[in-house]
């Protein structure tokens, strides 16, 4: 419990020596020194305002890793197919380019969604039993990039290791 200097405590009648400099004037409460808070609060509010005005909430970005051909652009004619027959995925946009469908080697119907494409790729990978089979994505020239990434992402999800893009050579 704190004992106030001004309040007399019962039984404390001992006379203590008080140096002249420490003598207090009777009747006035003792003032304790306090650091000035106002500038600190000012600066704090300035900082808060800065952060509130400048911050922009963004979603977490990531990267889907891949590789590029090491010896320049790979130009391959149909006669020079690699030993493993690649799985070809064609990305075809709708008329208004707001959606896209996918065509895959060995699948006769158009695939409407990336999830469906992913399942078919997964099944194909299990059938072949190898992740080394090349997956070649053939996007149409005017297909939005987002649908190309969807196809690449699904091939990655199916654990294929050789995923490439093909482009028409003019």
């Amino acid at each position, binding site marked *: 419990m704190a004992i106030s200097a001004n309040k007399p405590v019962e039984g404390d009648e001992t006379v203590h020596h008080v140096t002249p400099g420490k003598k207090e004037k009777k009747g006035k409460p003792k003032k304790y020194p306090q650091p000035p808070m106002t500038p600190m609060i000012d600066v704090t509010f300035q900082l*808060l305002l800065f952060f509130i005005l400048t*911050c922009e909430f963004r979603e977490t970005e990531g990267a889907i890793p891949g590789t*590029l051909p090491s010896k320049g652009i790979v130009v391959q004619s149909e006669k020079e197919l690699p030993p493993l027959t690649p799985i070809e995925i064609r990305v075809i946009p709708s008329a208004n380019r707001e959606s896209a469908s996918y065509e895959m080697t060995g699948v006769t119907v158009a695939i409407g969604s990336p999830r469906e494409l*992913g399942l078919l790729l997964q099944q194909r990978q299990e059938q072949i039993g190898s992740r080394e089979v090349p997956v070649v994505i053939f996007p149409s020239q005017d297909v939005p990039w*987002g649908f*190309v990434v969807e196809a690449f992402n699904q091939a990655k999800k199916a654990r294929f290791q050789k995923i490439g893009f093909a482009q028409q050579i003019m």
Partner: protein
Amino acid sequence: MAKRTVYSCSDVGFNMTPMIDCTFQLIIFFILASQVATDAYASNVKLIRPVDSQAIPIAVAPFPNKVVVNVLSAAAGEKDPDPEMAAEVKFYKINQVKFNVGEWDRMADVIRNMRTEYEKQFPASKAPSAGASGKEGEDDRQFFLEVRADQRVKWEDVAPVIRAGVEAGISKLNITALTARADEVN
């Protein structure tokens, strides 16, 4: 008649302590949650969040072992309703350098120069490891190309960027996408 108590100005005051407490809490939140924007990542790029996204969060590497090519759409913003405009490329951006459509040779030169500069600064034996990949045996010190394209732009405008990377002798490619939502992760 009841006695009226009169308070002087010095008796009335706000209790500042809870307000200062809250203010400090907010400041700490903003300081910890904020990331300083860099030139490498342009704003106004509408990235795709693929179904079951395989995108790995980008680790902040202490060394510049990548070149980020931003492909910006000509759309006014992320919610521009004009699909024709959104499909067009406004410009390409590497750090502060802008490229117009068709400047592929210049882009390949810039990428090649950045790669050469990195390899000069960090020869293969001295390059620090970021440890970002987390996969044993994977060389995460290798200089790579990161394609950060708006999901609305056409493939034919992104393909030349990849080709420029190949021409610049880069063998590793990262495609930027949004990571899977927390509720999507198995």
